[in-house]
């Protein structure tokens, strides 16, 4: 049990700090965004699992040979007032920390879900009053705004893609189609679930490098995935032009800033590129365009298999260490 907790702690530290930094600097995720997305999910899940597992295993060490027997003994102490003399101060400390961290993660996940849902509902209510339905279909609405803006608002069957008048005026029909396909890809691939999970992960442990890097990478990767869907039917040049037009007339221009009365917000962004806070998407647009301009082949089959094997191992190893008794001394 002691070696198990030691190993899990090392794994937790590796997944919290060096591994995400290396992955966020790597070039290959742009070549195979889907594989990279799986790896980020495995890192986040395995990171949480090993963090909690390490503390749990350490705390239960004196009272059980495996996690299950330890938990049974602990339940006996909690519910049946069995003597707790076997547990030292640090064991109880580790167990409490494991319980608190678990509760914190679950609570943050639920709270984030609730907040996102509430914001989306409110947004949808206003859209129903302000936007008009588009001729492109029931899932598309047009908002009377001059700057070129396109976004999708997930909401199950009531998911909607919103385009601004400014966007409709600035783009040619094929470019508009590319934007619509891109946004619909976000909806059909359920990217909002990833955004939610990684937003909650960051909200729960904001000081951990992995949570910020993971959220930024995931934000970038979903854009690449949606771009790839658009490329199936629209040409590369069309998509690049659409991105360039929307980006150049975008929200960050001073006129739009004044028009929407939020000075400061975007000012901070543009004067301090790379500042913390609002830079989740910084760099995304440039890397999207450079990826489209100079495409590189996707990772080879064997390399993808290696990454997938890493994902499986990341999840299987901590799980096995926790559940199978006596794997490591």
């Amino acid at each position, binding site marked *: 049990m002691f070696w198990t907790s030691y190993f899990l702690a090392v794994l937790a530290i590796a997944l919290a700090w060096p591994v995400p930094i290396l992955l966020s600097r790597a070039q290959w995720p742009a070549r195979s965004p889907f594989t990279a997305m799986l790896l980020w999910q495995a890192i986040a899940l395995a990171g949480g699992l090993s963090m909690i597992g390490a503390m749990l295993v350490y705390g239960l060490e004196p009272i059980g040979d495996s996690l299950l027997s330890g938990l049974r003994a602990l339940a006996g102490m909690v519910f049946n007032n069995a003597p707790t003399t076997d547990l030292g101060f640090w064991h109880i400390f580790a167990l409490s920390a494991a319980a608190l961290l678990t509760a914190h993660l679950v609570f943050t996940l639920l709270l*984030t879900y609730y*907040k*996102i849902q509430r*914001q*989306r509902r409110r*947004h949808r*209510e*206003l859209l*129903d*009053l*302000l936007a008009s339905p588009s001729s492109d279909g029931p899932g598309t609405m047009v*908002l009377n*705004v001059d700057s070129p*803006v*396109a*976004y*999708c*608002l*997930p909401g199950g069957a009531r998911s909607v893609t919103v385009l601004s008048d400014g966007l409709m005026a600035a783009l040619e029909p094929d470019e508009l189609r590319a934007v619509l396909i*891109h*946004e619909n890809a976000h909806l059909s691939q359920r*990217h*909002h679930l990833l*955004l*939610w999970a*990684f*937003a909650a992960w*960051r*909200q729960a442990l904001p000081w951990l490098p992995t949570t910020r890097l993971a*959220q930024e990478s995931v*934000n970038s990767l*979903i*854009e690449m995935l949606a771009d790839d869907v658009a490329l199936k039917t629209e040409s590369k040049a069309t998509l*690049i032009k*659409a*991105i*360039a037009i*929307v*980006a*150049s007339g*975008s*929200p*960050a221009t001073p006129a*739009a800033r004044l028009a*929407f009365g939020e000075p400061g*917000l*975007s000012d901070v*962004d*543009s004067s301090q*590129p*790379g500042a913390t*806070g*609002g*830079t*989740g*998407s910084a760099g995304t*647009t*440039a890397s999207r*365009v450079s990826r489209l*301009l100079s495409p590189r082949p996707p990772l080879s089959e064997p390399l993808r298999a290696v990454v997938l094997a890493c994902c499986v191992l990341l999840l299987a190893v901590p799980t096995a260490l926790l559940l199978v008794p006596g794997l490591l001394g």
Partner: protein
Amino acid sequence: MASLGELERAVMDLLWAGQEAATANTLRDLLAQSTHPQDGTAGHVGKDLAVTTVLTVLSRLERKGLVERERGTRPHRYQAVSSRADHTAELMHEVLGSAPDREAVLARFIGSVTDNEAETLRKLLGRN
């Protein structure tokens, strides 16, 4: 017969267009006169509308925080909490804002672009 959603929209349009607070009766009359935006037929939402229906719509809008009631007078007079432009700005604030906790609410085609990035973009596109 128009759906509640259409009625809410029509009522808000009237309140946003009007300068003063209006009673449910006034709104009902205005709805009955309203013409269809496309084919121009009269009373597309408000024909044969009962005042109670208008009151239902108003209370739904009040619950959503879009409409407020003047308490002192009888019958109650209703008005929009903020203008159409303010609500549009509220939406855009949510769309354009880049606080991390907002990023999960919706997915934008292009995120906020920094000066550095705009420069990189120009270079990338110029090269082609």
